[in-house]
Protein backbone atom coordinates (compact mmCIF):
# COMPACT_ATOMS: atom_id res chain seq x y z
CA UNK A 1 0.00 0.00 0.00
CA UNK A 2 1.27 3.44 -0.86
CA UNK A 3 1.84 5.71 2.11
CA UNK A 4 2.54 9.42 2.37
CA UNK A 5 4.88 11.29 4.71
CA UNK A 6 3.43 13.71 7.26
CA UNK A 7 4.50 15.20 10.58
CA UNK A 8 2.96 14.35 13.95
CA UNK A 9 3.02 16.77 16.88
CA UNK A 10 2.37 15.07 20.21
CA UNK A 11 1.82 17.32 23.21
CA UNK A 12 1.37 16.01 26.76
CA UNK A 13 0.02 18.90 28.81
CA UNK A 14 -2.04 19.67 31.89
CA UNK A 15 -5.81 19.31 31.61
CA UNK A 16 -6.53 22.90 32.77
CA UNK A 17 -4.72 24.05 29.65
CA UNK A 18 -6.76 21.91 27.27
CA UNK A 19 -9.36 24.62 26.57
CA UNK A 20 -6.74 27.14 25.49
CA UNK A 21 -4.95 24.54 23.40
CA UNK A 22 -8.16 23.63 21.63
CA UNK A 23 -8.92 27.30 20.95
CA UNK A 24 -5.53 27.66 19.25
CA UNK A 25 -5.88 24.39 17.36
CA UNK A 26 -9.32 25.37 16.09
CA UNK A 27 -7.73 28.41 14.45
CA UNK A 28 -4.66 26.58 13.12
CA UNK A 29 -4.29 25.56 9.47
CA UNK A 30 -4.88 21.87 10.23
CA UNK A 31 -7.74 19.56 9.38
CA UNK A 32 -8.17 18.19 12.90
CA UNK A 33 -6.59 16.85 16.06
CA UNK A 34 -7.17 14.16 18.67
CA UNK A 35 -7.36 14.65 22.43
CA UNK A 36 -6.65 11.68 24.71
CA UNK A 37 -6.93 11.33 28.50
CA UNK A 38 -3.90 10.00 30.32
CA UNK A 39 -4.26 7.59 33.24
CA UNK A 40 -1.12 8.58 35.12
CA UNK A 41 2.62 8.88 35.05
CA UNK A 42 5.68 10.32 36.73
CA UNK A 43 7.84 13.35 35.98
CA UNK A 44 10.13 15.85 37.65
CA UNK A 45 7.20 17.11 39.78
CA UNK A 46 6.49 13.58 41.05
CA UNK A 47 3.91 10.90 40.24
CA UNK A 48 0.37 11.76 39.22
CA UNK A 49 -2.81 9.87 38.44
CA UNK A 50 -6.23 10.94 37.25
CA UNK A 51 -8.01 8.33 39.40
CA UNK A 52 -10.26 9.75 42.07
CA UNK A 53 -9.62 13.40 41.16
CA UNK A 54 -12.52 15.81 40.95
CA UNK A 55 -10.54 18.85 39.84
CA UNK A 56 -8.67 19.34 36.58
CA UNK A 57 -5.33 20.18 38.22
CA UNK A 58 -3.13 17.13 38.50
CA UNK A 59 -4.49 15.52 35.35
CA UNK A 60 -2.74 15.37 32.00
CA UNK A 61 -3.97 14.94 28.43
CA UNK A 62 -2.34 14.23 25.08
CA UNK A 63 -2.98 16.20 21.89
CA UNK A 64 -2.13 14.43 18.63
CA UNK A 65 -1.90 16.56 15.50
CA UNK A 66 -0.96 15.26 12.05
CA UNK A 67 -0.11 17.86 9.46
CA UNK A 68 1.96 18.78 6.44
CA UNK A 69 5.58 19.62 7.04
CA UNK A 70 4.95 23.01 5.41
CA UNK A 71 2.62 23.97 8.29
CA UNK A 72 4.73 22.47 11.07
CA UNK A 73 6.76 25.48 12.22
CA UNK A 74 3.86 27.94 12.28
CA UNK A 75 1.54 25.56 14.19
CA UNK A 76 4.30 24.51 16.57
CA UNK A 77 5.24 28.11 17.39
CA UNK A 78 1.60 29.00 18.10
CA UNK A 79 1.07 25.99 20.40
CA UNK A 80 4.40 26.41 22.15
CA UNK A 81 3.40 29.96 23.08
CA UNK A 82 0.46 28.47 25.01
CA UNK A 83 2.41 25.93 27.02
CA UNK A 84 5.84 27.52 27.24
CA UNK A 85 5.62 28.03 31.02
CA UNK A 86 3.62 24.90 31.75
CA UNK A 87 4.40 21.33 32.70
CA UNK A 88 4.42 19.19 29.56
CA UNK A 89 6.27 17.47 26.76
CA UNK A 90 6.24 18.24 23.02
CA UNK A 91 7.55 15.74 20.49
CA UNK A 92 7.57 15.86 16.69
CA UNK A 93 7.77 12.67 14.68
CA UNK A 94 7.79 11.58 11.05
CA UNK A 95 4.74 9.46 10.33
CA UNK A 96 3.18 7.84 7.28
CA UNK A 97 -0.51 8.11 6.45
CA UNK A 98 -2.56 6.19 3.89
CA UNK A 99 -5.08 8.92 3.11
CA UNK A 100 -3.11 12.15 2.59
CA UNK A 101 -6.17 14.14 1.51
CA UNK A 102 -7.46 13.91 5.13
CA UNK A 103 -4.59 16.01 6.45
Amino acid at each position, binding site marked *: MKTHPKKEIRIICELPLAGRMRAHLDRAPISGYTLLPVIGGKGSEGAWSREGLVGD*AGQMVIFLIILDEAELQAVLADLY*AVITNQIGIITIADVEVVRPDRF
Partner: protein
Amino acid sequence: MLQLAAANLLSPPVLFFVLGFAGSLAGSKLTLPEAVAKTLSLYLMLSIGFKGGVAVAGHGLTGEMFAAIGAGVVLSALLPVAAFALLGLMSPLSRVDRAAVAAHYGSISIVTFVAASETLRSLGVDFDGYMVAIAAIMETPAILVALYLAGSNRPRQEGESLFGEVLLNSSVVVLTGAFVIGAITGEKGMAEISPFIVDPFKGILCLFLLDMGAVAARGIANGSRFLNPGLIVFGAVMPALSASAALAIAWLTGMPAGNAAILMTLAASASYIAVPAAMRLALPEANPAIYLTLSLGITFPINLVIGIPAYLALARWILP
Protein backbone atom coordinates in the same frame (compact mmCIF):
# COMPACT_ATOMS: atom_id res chain seq x y z
CA MET B 1 -16.71 20.19 72.94
CA LEU B 2 -15.50 16.60 73.51
CA GLN B 3 -19.02 15.34 72.86
CA LEU B 4 -19.13 17.24 69.59
CA ALA B 5 -15.72 15.95 68.57
CA ALA B 6 -16.72 12.38 69.35
CA ALA B 7 -20.00 12.72 67.45
CA ASN B 8 -18.10 14.04 64.44
CA LEU B 9 -15.31 11.48 64.61
CA LEU B 10 -17.76 8.61 64.82
CA SER B 11 -20.05 9.84 62.05
CA PRO B 12 -20.19 7.67 58.91
CA PRO B 13 -18.78 10.35 56.51
CA VAL B 14 -15.67 10.95 58.67
CA LEU B 15 -15.15 7.24 59.28
CA PHE B 16 -15.36 6.54 55.53
CA PHE B 17 -12.82 9.32 54.93
CA VAL B 18 -10.51 7.74 57.52
CA LEU B 19 -11.02 4.34 55.86
CA GLY B 20 -9.99 5.73 52.46
CA PHE B 21 -7.03 7.59 53.97
CA ALA B 22 -5.77 4.64 56.01
CA GLY B 23 -6.40 2.13 53.24
CA SER B 24 -4.45 4.18 50.74
CA LEU B 25 -1.56 4.76 53.15
CA ALA B 26 -1.47 1.00 53.80
CA GLY B 27 -1.04 0.39 50.08
CA SER B 28 -4.60 -0.35 48.95
CA LYS B 29 -5.40 0.68 45.38
CA LEU B 30 -8.80 1.83 46.63
CA THR B 31 -10.03 4.71 44.49
CA LEU B 32 -12.97 5.68 42.31
CA PRO B 33 -12.62 6.21 38.57
CA GLU B 34 -12.21 9.92 37.84
CA ALA B 35 -15.58 10.12 36.02
CA VAL B 36 -17.40 8.62 39.02
CA ALA B 37 -15.66 10.96 41.47
CA LYS B 38 -16.62 13.95 39.32
CA THR B 39 -20.23 12.77 39.08
CA LEU B 40 -20.48 12.34 42.86
CA SER B 41 -18.95 15.79 43.32
CA LEU B 42 -21.49 17.35 40.95
CA TYR B 43 -24.32 15.52 42.74
CA LEU B 44 -23.20 16.99 46.07
CA MET B 45 -22.97 20.49 44.56
CA LEU B 46 -26.42 20.14 42.99
CA SER B 47 -27.98 18.88 46.19
CA ILE B 48 -26.46 21.40 48.56
CA GLY B 49 -27.06 24.28 46.14
CA PHE B 50 -30.70 23.33 45.62
CA LYS B 51 -31.38 22.94 49.34
CA GLY B 52 -29.86 26.37 49.98
CA GLY B 53 -31.99 27.94 47.26
CA VAL B 54 -35.17 26.39 48.67
CA ALA B 55 -34.32 27.77 52.11
CA VAL B 56 -33.83 31.27 50.66
CA ALA B 57 -37.16 30.97 48.82
CA GLY B 58 -38.78 30.35 52.20
CA HIS B 59 -37.23 33.34 53.95
CA GLY B 60 -36.59 35.83 51.14
CA LEU B 61 -33.65 38.20 50.81
CA THR B 62 -32.66 39.72 54.13
CA GLY B 63 -30.20 42.28 55.43
CA GLU B 64 -28.43 39.49 57.33
CA MET B 65 -27.86 37.70 54.04
CA PHE B 66 -26.15 40.70 52.46
CA ALA B 67 -24.07 41.24 55.60
CA ALA B 68 -22.96 37.61 55.45
CA ILE B 69 -22.09 37.95 51.75
CA GLY B 70 -20.01 41.03 52.59
CA ALA B 71 -18.27 39.08 55.35
CA GLY B 72 -17.46 36.29 52.92
CA VAL B 73 -16.01 38.64 50.32
CA VAL B 74 -13.89 40.46 52.92
CA LEU B 75 -12.55 37.17 54.28
CA SER B 76 -11.77 35.79 50.85
CA ALA B 77 -9.89 38.99 49.96
CA LEU B 78 -7.95 39.38 53.21
CA LEU B 79 -7.07 35.77 54.09
CA PRO B 80 -4.67 35.41 51.14
CA VAL B 81 -2.75 38.44 52.39
CA ALA B 82 -2.43 36.85 55.84
CA ALA B 83 -1.46 33.49 54.34
CA PHE B 84 1.10 35.14 52.06
CA ALA B 85 2.69 36.98 55.00
CA LEU B 86 2.67 33.88 57.22
CA LEU B 87 4.28 31.77 54.52
CA GLY B 88 7.02 34.39 54.23
CA LEU B 89 7.79 33.87 57.91
CA MET B 90 7.47 30.08 57.95
CA SER B 91 8.94 28.90 54.67
CA PRO B 92 11.56 29.67 52.04
CA LEU B 93 8.99 29.53 49.21
CA SER B 94 9.32 31.88 46.24
CA ARG B 95 6.92 34.81 45.93
CA VAL B 96 4.92 33.02 43.22
CA ASP B 97 4.62 29.81 45.24
CA ARG B 98 3.52 31.78 48.30
CA ALA B 99 0.89 33.63 46.26
CA ALA B 100 -0.43 30.38 44.76
CA VAL B 101 -0.72 28.74 48.19
CA ALA B 102 -2.34 31.93 49.56
CA ALA B 103 -5.01 31.78 46.83
CA HIS B 104 -5.99 28.29 48.00
CA TYR B 105 -6.31 29.40 51.63
CA GLY B 106 -8.37 32.48 50.76
CA SER B 107 -10.73 30.47 48.61
CA ILE B 108 -12.86 27.62 49.95
CA SER B 109 -13.27 23.86 49.77
CA ILE B 110 -16.85 23.15 48.80
CA VAL B 111 -16.56 19.55 50.03
CA THR B 112 -15.53 20.78 53.49
CA PHE B 113 -18.58 23.05 53.37
CA VAL B 114 -20.80 20.09 52.44
CA ALA B 115 -19.35 18.04 55.31
CA ALA B 116 -19.87 20.91 57.78
CA SER B 117 -23.46 21.40 56.60
CA GLU B 118 -24.16 17.70 57.11
CA THR B 119 -22.56 17.74 60.57
CA LEU B 120 -24.67 20.72 61.64
CA ARG B 121 -27.85 19.12 60.27
CA SER B 122 -27.16 15.85 62.05
CA LEU B 123 -26.62 17.75 65.32
CA GLY B 124 -29.79 19.78 64.82
CA VAL B 125 -27.92 23.11 64.54
CA ASP B 126 -29.76 25.59 62.31
CA PHE B 127 -28.02 27.69 59.68
CA ASP B 128 -29.37 29.80 56.85
CA GLY B 129 -29.65 28.41 53.32
CA TYR B 130 -27.95 31.47 51.85
CA MET B 131 -24.63 30.29 53.28
CA VAL B 132 -24.38 28.25 50.06
CA ALA B 133 -24.29 31.48 48.08
CA ILE B 134 -21.49 32.74 50.30
CA ALA B 135 -19.53 29.58 49.59
CA ALA B 136 -19.84 30.21 45.85
CA ILE B 137 -18.94 33.89 46.23
CA MET B 138 -15.83 33.12 48.30
CA GLU B 139 -14.32 30.99 45.51
CA THR B 140 -13.00 33.86 43.43
CA PRO B 141 -11.80 37.05 45.27
CA ALA B 142 -8.80 35.17 46.66
CA ILE B 143 -7.58 34.40 43.16
CA LEU B 144 -7.55 38.10 42.23
CA VAL B 145 -5.70 39.03 45.40
CA ALA B 146 -3.18 36.22 44.93
CA LEU B 147 -2.39 37.35 41.38
CA TYR B 148 -1.72 40.82 42.74
CA LEU B 149 0.50 39.36 45.48
CA ALA B 150 2.43 37.34 42.90
CA GLY B 151 3.07 40.50 40.91
CA SER B 152 1.77 38.62 37.90
CA ASN B 153 2.26 40.78 34.83
CA ARG B 154 2.53 37.99 32.32
CA PRO B 155 1.28 39.25 28.96
CA ARG B 156 -2.07 37.73 28.08
CA GLN B 157 -2.38 35.68 24.97
CA GLU B 158 -5.27 35.86 22.59
CA GLY B 159 -8.18 33.70 23.75
CA GLU B 160 -7.13 33.65 27.40
CA SER B 161 -9.94 34.44 29.80
CA LEU B 162 -8.88 33.28 33.23
CA PHE B 163 -11.94 34.52 35.04
CA GLY B 164 -14.30 33.05 32.50
CA GLU B 165 -12.48 29.76 32.97
CA VAL B 166 -12.64 30.04 36.78
CA LEU B 167 -16.17 31.38 37.11
CA LEU B 168 -17.51 28.80 34.70
CA ASN B 169 -15.85 25.78 36.30
CA SER B 170 -18.39 23.03 36.70
CA SER B 171 -18.63 23.07 40.50
CA VAL B 172 -19.35 26.82 40.63
CA VAL B 173 -21.87 26.62 37.78
CA VAL B 174 -23.75 23.66 39.31
CA LEU B 175 -23.68 25.04 42.86
CA THR B 176 -24.84 28.52 41.85
CA GLY B 177 -27.28 27.24 39.24
CA ALA B 178 -28.86 24.72 41.62
CA PHE B 179 -29.14 27.48 44.24
CA VAL B 180 -31.03 29.70 41.78
CA ILE B 181 -33.26 26.81 40.66
CA GLY B 182 -33.99 25.96 44.28
CA ALA B 183 -34.86 29.61 45.00
CA ILE B 184 -37.19 29.72 41.96
CA THR B 185 -38.98 26.41 42.55
CA GLY B 186 -39.05 26.50 46.36
CA GLU B 187 -40.75 23.79 48.42
CA LYS B 188 -42.74 22.55 45.41
CA GLY B 189 -39.51 21.84 43.53
CA MET B 190 -38.04 20.22 46.62
CA ALA B 191 -41.03 17.90 46.96
CA GLU B 192 -40.54 16.79 43.35
CA ILE B 193 -36.87 15.87 43.55
CA SER B 194 -36.21 15.20 47.23
CA PRO B 195 -36.02 11.40 46.71
CA PHE B 196 -32.99 12.15 44.52
CA ILE B 197 -31.27 15.00 46.33
CA VAL B 198 -32.15 14.45 49.99
CA ASP B 199 -32.52 10.75 50.76
CA PRO B 200 -29.31 9.42 49.14
CA PHE B 201 -27.24 12.46 50.11
CA LYS B 202 -25.45 11.11 53.16
CA GLY B 203 -24.63 7.77 51.55
CA ILE B 204 -23.18 9.48 48.50
CA LEU B 205 -21.21 11.83 50.73
CA CYS B 206 -19.73 8.74 52.44
CA LEU B 207 -18.72 7.23 49.10
CA PHE B 208 -17.22 10.52 47.95
CA LEU B 209 -15.28 11.00 51.18
CA LEU B 210 -13.98 7.44 50.95
CA ASP B 211 -12.43 8.46 47.63
CA MET B 212 -11.22 11.80 48.98
CA GLY B 213 -9.49 9.99 51.83
CA ALA B 214 -7.63 7.83 49.34
CA VAL B 215 -6.73 10.84 47.16
CA ALA B 216 -5.55 12.84 50.20
CA ALA B 217 -3.30 10.01 51.38
CA ARG B 218 -1.93 9.55 47.87
CA GLY B 219 -1.24 13.30 47.73
CA ILE B 220 0.76 13.12 50.95
CA ALA B 221 2.69 10.08 49.77
CA ASN B 222 3.57 11.73 46.44
CA GLY B 223 3.91 15.34 47.52
CA SER B 224 5.42 15.23 51.00
CA ARG B 225 8.97 15.64 49.64
CA PHE B 226 7.95 19.14 48.50
CA LEU B 227 6.86 20.17 52.01
CA ASN B 228 9.21 21.25 54.79
CA PRO B 229 8.21 21.35 58.48
CA GLY B 230 7.32 25.05 58.23
CA LEU B 231 4.84 24.37 55.45
CA ILE B 232 3.26 21.45 57.30
CA VAL B 233 2.80 23.65 60.37
CA PHE B 234 1.34 26.34 58.10
CA GLY B 235 -1.20 23.84 56.72
CA ALA B 236 -2.28 23.02 60.27
CA VAL B 237 -2.20 26.53 61.76
CA MET B 238 -3.65 28.64 58.94
CA PRO B 239 -7.14 27.08 59.22
CA ALA B 240 -7.27 28.03 62.91
CA LEU B 241 -6.23 31.62 62.14
CA SER B 242 -8.74 31.90 59.31
CA ALA B 243 -11.53 30.46 61.45
CA SER B 244 -10.65 32.96 64.21
CA ALA B 245 -10.89 35.85 61.74
CA ALA B 246 -14.25 34.53 60.55
CA LEU B 247 -15.47 34.21 64.12
CA ALA B 248 -14.53 37.84 64.80
CA ILE B 249 -16.42 38.98 61.70
CA ALA B 250 -19.40 36.79 62.64
CA TRP B 251 -19.43 38.40 66.09
CA LEU B 252 -19.20 41.91 64.61
CA THR B 253 -22.07 41.27 62.21
CA GLY B 254 -24.24 39.53 64.80
CA MET B 255 -24.43 36.14 63.07
CA PRO B 256 -26.15 33.23 64.79
CA ALA B 257 -23.90 30.36 65.87
CA GLY B 258 -24.86 27.99 63.02
CA ASN B 259 -24.06 30.55 60.32
CA ALA B 260 -20.86 31.48 62.12
CA ALA B 261 -19.73 27.84 62.26
CA ILE B 262 -20.29 27.57 58.50
CA LEU B 263 -18.45 30.84 57.83
CA MET B 264 -15.55 29.66 60.02
CA THR B 265 -15.42 26.38 58.11
CA LEU B 266 -15.43 28.19 54.78
CA ALA B 267 -12.65 30.51 55.90
CA ALA B 268 -10.59 27.66 57.34
CA SER B 269 -10.91 25.45 54.26
CA ALA B 270 -8.55 25.52 51.31
CA SER B 271 -9.63 25.00 47.73
CA TYR B 272 -8.53 21.91 45.82
CA ILE B 273 -10.84 21.99 42.81
CA ALA B 274 -11.29 25.48 41.35
CA VAL B 275 -8.16 27.30 42.52
CA PRO B 276 -5.56 24.65 41.58
CA ALA B 277 -6.85 24.72 37.99
CA ALA B 278 -6.84 28.53 38.01
CA MET B 279 -3.28 28.60 39.34
CA ARG B 280 -2.09 26.22 36.63
CA LEU B 281 -3.34 28.78 34.13
CA ALA B 282 -2.44 32.01 35.88
CA LEU B 283 0.74 31.12 37.79
CA PRO B 284 2.23 28.13 35.97
CA GLU B 285 5.62 28.76 37.59
CA ALA B 286 4.16 27.82 41.00
CA ASN B 287 4.73 24.20 41.99
CA PRO B 288 1.34 22.40 42.06
CA ALA B 289 2.70 19.63 44.32
CA ILE B 290 3.07 22.20 47.13
CA TYR B 291 -0.40 23.71 47.07
CA LEU B 292 -2.27 20.50 46.26
CA THR B 293 -0.53 18.54 49.01
CA LEU B 294 -1.09 21.32 51.54
CA SER B 295 -4.76 21.90 50.80
CA LEU B 296 -5.83 18.31 50.16
CA GLY B 297 -3.33 16.30 52.20
CA ILE B 298 -2.97 18.49 55.32
CA THR B 299 -5.74 21.07 55.68
CA PHE B 300 -8.72 19.09 54.37
CA PRO B 301 -8.29 16.13 56.78
CA ILE B 302 -7.66 18.48 59.72
CA ASN B 303 -10.81 20.45 58.99
CA LEU B 304 -12.90 17.37 58.43
CA VAL B 305 -11.82 15.47 61.52
CA ILE B 306 -11.01 18.17 64.10
CA GLY B 307 -11.85 21.56 62.63
CA ILE B 308 -15.58 21.37 62.01
CA PRO B 309 -16.57 20.32 65.55
CA ALA B 310 -14.08 22.82 67.00
CA TYR B 311 -15.50 25.69 64.94
CA LEU B 312 -19.03 24.77 65.94
CA ALA B 313 -18.11 24.54 69.62
CA LEU B 314 -16.36 27.92 69.51
CA ALA B 315 -19.24 29.56 67.66
CA ARG B 316 -21.74 28.19 70.19
CA TRP B 317 -19.57 29.32 73.07
CA ILE B 318 -19.01 32.87 71.88
CA LEU B 319 -22.17 33.65 69.92
CA PRO B 320 -25.83 33.32 70.92
